[in-house]
């Protein structure tokens, strides 16, 4: 009896650890290490010749500089825009705060390449809706905006990556004890002085954390630079990597690794540095009962400010979505927008196109498999990390975090070089490699969600079941699983949605029979079929929106993207 308990406990625990670690090491740590190896080993010896060759190429170096320039500008702009927005939404008597809050995180769930497609429709120099409108109204002879430019890229990225900063900053704003500000007022400081000397310094760690997230996401994004920047010959690291891989030669791949390693080191390094430094500055600001925030009265500025905020919301969300919807329903792209120029005929063509529907099916299948596998693995990882005292319990969790923190393009490249037969496992252009890549990138989403909810289940609840005579397995089934089930479902959707519309990794990993919806949409945009692209974009948005509504309902509003 004793021996049996010992054995079953020993076995399951270590079996779980071993499986989780093996899977994660095989698909996350190993490919990344191999990527670094391949970038520094040339013909059997370690040297940096590869890096020298790659970065002395003018195009590559320009791409490197562009990446930094664009990311920095996008980060700066995002913080400048979202800090006041977060303050207005969290701390003032701005009308319609709840609505605006939802609006400002909405672009977070729209795939960035869909945003890029929309802004091309609005701002391309020949037929952009906004351009033609402004030309007609002001009698201009030239289009005022050209989306195919550095400015256009920065504009799109700011709209689509600033929610990272908004979410981080507004969460910190809400958590801040309002009496910290009140103490400054009573000490004789005006509201403005309080903002500068108390609120801003207290918010600084979250501003930096949010800024780092924006910087990394902008730097590793592929969709927007590919769709908006490439036509204007503006290259960034991600687009260069894809170009190299598409060359298909060993030399091309080797040079791509040198670009990818830099991207990976910068992204992971920044993220760990900011977590490490800010972790020390973690201000405990949770207060006592006076958490009812004292809202700042905007006074006579109330309506002008509301108008400004609403205008930003309109431009960042409604304008691009409206543009896609209208484009998907136009009879003729060359005629102006009016009711008699609208039709559903493009929709019918798209829905009846089996090629399109196959891609949709591939994405749906791959995302479903990924989400399901991720949920099961995440459940083990989370239980291990939260509920056990086993040595090394946090290792699988941190491997999952590593995957989530690594730029998608880097993961894809690492998987290509590792699993195209080099080590006896050839997954190239199969659905399996798509699933593996999504798993590496998004597993952390479900681990986070499930751990957070497992932490809330106090150990005594489980112990009460054990002392009532239930076995460990039975206690899991009757007590723990039901309590965390909303988070399990939430975690499933949080993996499913980004996997479903994924582009960056899919573009490197798809095969002729495994084209995903993201890749299809990208190709359509590049080969100029904006109407079909718009229809498919709307389909993606509807699925993502449906998933989100379901997610919010299941988690009672606590989870959602």
């Amino acid at each position: 009896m004793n021996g049996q308990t010992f054995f079953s406990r020993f076995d399951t625990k270590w079996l779980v650890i071993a499986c989780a670690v093996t899977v994660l090491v095989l698909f996350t740590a190993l490919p990344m290490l191999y990527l670094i190896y391949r970038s520094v080993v040339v013909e059997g010896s370690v040297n940096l010749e590869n890096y020298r060759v790659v970065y002395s190429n003018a195009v590559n170096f320009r791409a490197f500089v562009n990446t930094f320039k664009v990311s920095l500008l996008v980060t700066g702009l995002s913080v400048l825009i979202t800090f006041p927005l977060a303050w207005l939404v969290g701390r003032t008597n701005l009308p319609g705060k709840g609505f605006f809050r939802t609006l400002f995180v909405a672009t977070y769930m729209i795939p960035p390449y869909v945003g890029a497609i929309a802004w091309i429709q609005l701002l391309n120099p020949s037929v952009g809706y906004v351009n033609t409108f402004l030309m007609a109204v002001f009698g201009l002879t030239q289009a005022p905006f050209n989306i195919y430019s550095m400015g256009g890229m920065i504009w799109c990225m700011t709209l689509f990556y600033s929610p990272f900063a908004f979410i981080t900053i507004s969460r910190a704003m809400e958590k801040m004890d309002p009496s910290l500000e009140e103490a400054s007022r009573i000490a004789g400081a005006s509201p403005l002085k309080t903002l500068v000397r108390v609120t801003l310094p207290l918010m600084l760690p979250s501003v930096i954390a949010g800024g780092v997230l924006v910087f990394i996401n902008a730097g590793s994004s592929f969709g927007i630079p590919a769709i908006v920047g490439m036509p204007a010959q503006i290259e960034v690291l991600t687009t260069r990597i894809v170009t190299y891989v598409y060359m298909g030669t060993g030399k091309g791949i080797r040079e791509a690794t040198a670009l990818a390693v830099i991207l990976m080191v910068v992204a992971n390094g920044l993220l760990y540095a900011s977590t490490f430094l800010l972790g020390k500055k973690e201000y405990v600001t949770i207060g006592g009962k006076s958490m009812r925030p004292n809202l700042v009265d905007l006074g006579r500025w109330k309506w002008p400010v509301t108008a400004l905020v609403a205008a930003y919301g309109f431009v960042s969300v409604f304008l691009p979505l409206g543009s896609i919807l209208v484009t998907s329903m136009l009879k003729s792209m060359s005629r102006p927008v009016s009711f008699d120029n609208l039709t559903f005929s493009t929709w019918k063509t798209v829905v009846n196109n089996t090629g399109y529907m196959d891609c949709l099916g591939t994405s749906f299948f791959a995302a479903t498999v990924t989400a399901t596998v991720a949920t099961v693995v995440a459940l083990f990882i989370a239980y291990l990390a939260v509920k056990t005292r086993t040595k090394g319990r946090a290792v699988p969790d941190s491997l999952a975090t590593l995957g989530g923190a690594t730029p998608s393009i880097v993961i894809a490249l690492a998987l290509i070089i590792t699993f195209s037969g080099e080590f006896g496992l050839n997954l190239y252009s199969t659905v399996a490699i798509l699933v593996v890549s999504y798993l590496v990138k998004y597993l952390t989403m479900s681990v986070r969600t499930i751990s957070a909810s497992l932490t809330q289940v106090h150990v005594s609840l489980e112990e009460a079941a054990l002392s009532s005579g239930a076995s460990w397995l039975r206690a899991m089934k009757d007590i723990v699983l039901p309590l965390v089930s909303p988070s399990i479902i939430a975690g499933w959707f949080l993996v499913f949605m980004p996997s479903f519309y994924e582009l960056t990794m899919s573009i490197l990993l798809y095969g002729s029979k495994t084209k995903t919806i993201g890749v299809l949409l990208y190709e359509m945009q590049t080969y100029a079929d904006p109407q079909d692209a718009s229809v498919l974009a709307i389909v993606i948005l509807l699925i993502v929106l449906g998933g989100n509504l379901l997610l919010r309902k299941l988690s009672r509003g606590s989870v959602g993207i």
Partner: protein
Amino acid sequence: MAEVRIKAVSKIFGDVKAVNAFDTVVKDGEFVSILGPSGCGKTTMLRMIAGFERPSLGEIWIGDELVSSAESGVFLAPEKRSIGMVFQSYAVWPHMNVFQNVAYPLTIKNLNKEEIARRTNRVLGLVHLDGYAERFPNQLSGGQQQRVALARALVCEPRLLLLDEPLSNLDAKLRESMRFEIKELQRKLNITVIYVTHDQSEAMAMSDRIVVMHQGVVQQIASPVDVYETPANETVADFIGLVNFVPAELTADEVIFPSLGHAVKRDNACRGRARVGIRPENIALSKTETGLQGTIVHKFYMGDATDCRVAVGTETLRVIAKGDGFREYQDGDAVWLRLDKMIVFPVGDKA
């Protein structure tokens, strides 16, 4: 130093009257507590004095200055009221060290460096934080953070000090020693203090006068002794200390308790039905067969006191004896009671 005059102040949130016609004068140098259960409106009243809430009705004067008036629309911003305030959550700024926190009100006034240093160090000494100037709040215990908050509130020598449940986040022992420190500081600086708390022993120990609030309405304003011994109504009697309520009939010279089958000689101002409050420590027990007979239902030994439930007639009374007074009693023993002090509330007079 200043007198605070609160004239018929009400605060209405939606259709809830959080504070209803609060009216009192806090004298110069006086220590007044506002006491009541959570949600009684005491913090809202304090925040109106501080200037974080505007009164819906009435006006507030600090010294000779009208700071808030709902009727004439006068409203002085919190930063212009020159008062000190200590918050329940301390509100010590985590990005500044102890010195910077405490010196903040002085730096806002743009005083010169030497004066800031001199005054900050003096007040740090006053709250026993000499040597902690360079520390950051996350290196301090709760009690030390509390002292920082107190020093910051005092550094400008404000005319009025407001404290919002400042001790409720501290552990019991520290709470008691801080009580005396705050009281000592108030005496030394001779400052006007308004202190909000839900802890009656805190209010009793420190205050010159206590304002008892319940559901937004002031129930009584009196000294601690008067609030305890002659509470204005049953609500006050029930909230402050323990009390047994027994229905009674009043005649000219007797209080008759039908449910106890007992009467006590007393000269009464009123006649008719009443509710009589008897505090557990004002009932004497003995084995001698005189007076009112009862049975011990249960005896709880508390160390410094013994707490008994005694069945008398159809009532069960709570009786507390300090020390080891009830050592010889067992559950089920017959005992005789003497009612020493009574608080009489004629029925119909209930607030």
